[in-house]
């Protein structure tokens, strides 16, 4: 199916009658996935949004259940169900891959997170291939392709040639049964005066200029737990949580509650392994009290531990932390340093 850019607004309006549709846009100066309405101007040229789409499945604050005692003094526990049909329209391939990582964590290995699952089952991912990766993008190096998003339900690839009207075209392909079913709603917006064969979609030749080699990184890291690199590297880290909060795959959370008179709410919030309190235990002991231990944990988890457990790196190469770290502690520089480290593996 060929979809013209000029048809997108109509399509988004139609889609938002049956689901909450999120599109990349700037809101109050921050680029993120914003709930579509007629007053929102989607911007499909953004690479990448400052905030990743992870909060749609894993909100920064998620109420899990309410509890308390009713008027007769009988205790109750009331789960909070807040899953809706959600369409994320215009996810980049790296963000789609990040959902794959979150699925591993929240749905596999014999443990299913019901809050995540409820949202995940009602999510439709519409991906948009990249034509112009940002200077901080390095997804190729992490085993991704900027123009392919295998887990997406529907993939839009900007077609190489714009037609005579100057209107950009997208080649639309369903990649799952869910995506195929969803395309029924799109039919009335497809371009009828042309066929798929007339367009050359953006090719796999699109590539990130930033490149790193992941060869041997995981294996080397297994032997680098006590390497001096962590002490040296962590000196400039100010242990804020920026990298973890803008990361599309960081998924650590902390469960807490607030009580008022006879009722309360249990909720979970994003937590960050950069924060001292992250590993602080009830008795006051902290196994990761030092800054270098915390920095090591973050990078080990991204580049070694996750791969050991799930067979893929927890970094998708989106470059958000590279761009936003206030002290330019750059994961790609670390990967280079690991590559250069004289460690047998």
């Amino acid at each position, binding site marked *: 199916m060929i979809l013209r850019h000029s048809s997108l607004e109509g399509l988004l309006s139609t889609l938002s009658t049956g689901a909450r549709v999120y599109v990349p846009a700037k809101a109050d100066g921050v680029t993120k996935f914003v709930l579509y309405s007629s007053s929102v101007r989607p911007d499909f040229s953004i690479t990448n949004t400052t905030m990743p789409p992870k909060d749609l499945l894993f909100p920064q604050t998620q109420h899990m259940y309410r509890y308390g005692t009713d008027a007769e003094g009988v205790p109750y526990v009331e789960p909070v169900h807040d899953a809706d049909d959600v369409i994320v329209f215009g996810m980049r391939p790296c963000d789609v891959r990040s959902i794959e990582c979150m699925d591993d964590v929240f749905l596999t290995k014999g443990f299913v997170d019901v809050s995540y699952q409820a949202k995940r089952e009602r999510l439709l991912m519409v991906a948009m291939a990249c034509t112009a990766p940002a200077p901080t993008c390095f997804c190729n190096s992490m085993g991704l392709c900027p123009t392919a998003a295998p887990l997406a339900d529907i993939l839009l690839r900007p077609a190489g040639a714009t037609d005579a009207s100057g209107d950009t075209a997208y080649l639309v392909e369903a990649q799952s049964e869910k995506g195929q079913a969803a395309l029924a709603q799109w039919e009335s917006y497809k371009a009828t005066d042309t066929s798929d064969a007339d367009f050359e979609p953006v090719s796999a030749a699109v590539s990130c200029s930033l490149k790193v080699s992941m060869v041997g990184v995981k294996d080397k890291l297994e032997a680098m737990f006590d390497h001096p690199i962590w002490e040296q590297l962590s*000196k*400039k880290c100010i242990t804020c949580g920026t990298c973890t909060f803008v990361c599309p795959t960081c998924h650590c959370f902390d469960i807490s509650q607030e009580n008022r008179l006879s009722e309360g709410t249990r909720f979970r919030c*994003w937590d960050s392994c950069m*924060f001292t309190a992250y590993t602080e235990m009830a008795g006051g002991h902290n196994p990761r009290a030092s800054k270098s231990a915390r920095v090591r944990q973050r990078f080990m988890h991204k580049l070694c531990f996750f791969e050991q457990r799930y067979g893929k790196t927890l970094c998708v190469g989106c470059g958000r932390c590279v761009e936003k770290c*206030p*002290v*330019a502690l750059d994961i790609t520089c670390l990967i280079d340093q690991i590559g250069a480290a004289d460690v047998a593996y």
Partner: protein
Amino acid sequence: MSLSTAEALTDALREEARRLLAEGTVAVVVGWEAGRFPNQTTPAFISDPEQAQRLVYGDYCVNTLAKYALGEKAAGKVAVCVRGCDSRGINRMIADNQLLRDEVYLLGLPCSGMKDPATGSLLMKCRTCTEHDAVTYDVLLGPATAAGHDGASADSSAGDSEHVSDEQRFTAVLGIEEMAPEKRRALFDAAFNKCIRCYACRKSCPCCTCRECFVDQLRAGWQGKQNNLAENRFYNITRVFHIGDRCIECGECERACPMGLPLMALNRKMVKDLKSLFNADDAGMTEENSAALGRYDLGDLEEFM
């Protein structure tokens, strides 16, 4: 600054760092080195004299460095590259009993304002800076740019950041003060709504040196964990009141903020009020604690008692 000025200062910095490390005067030199991207720099920690050539100085040294002295001083004396902002941060930490003057060796550098490596334009924090050059140092590595010091400029390229008047410095505050209360409320609600509470503002601040921040006092529970407008408002307002009379106006919090919150407008509101109510001195200009609210004199008025 001109390319030749930057190169001369970089050479002087490397030479001085090498000498200090080789002679054992300091254990580590904190400066900047080149990052991966064009013009990008990143904080550097040099303890081997042979590595001193990694240091760079120029228009893109965006990080203020003062706070790193706290983390490094356990290893011995720390040499820190200082401009106006860095040196005022050092003074502030001395005044707050976090640091002794003897624990640091200050390498004074002239500054004509730093630029954003991505855009090449002067950083917001440098546009409203009142003290470009170091206010205290052990050695001065180049002629003063003096853009913030009584007029005369020693470097013609300092023209991109002229002396900043109080009017310019408080422009954002004045604009907000003039707003109707509802509009002001809406402005800050929008800002606090997008705060992700990564705490980069607190961590980058040379005044935020509490061993345990109120945010982390989980048992006391001052700061709730939920991310919502009420909690975000509480965090941001408490932060600004806590540093209120000590803020050195380096603007590092606002630069570090990944969400673009107007943190300096809040900080400067405190600075402006303290100036008009108490005739308060600008913070961090000396090692003395001149904080209007954070110290007392026996001669203080006690009209309210």
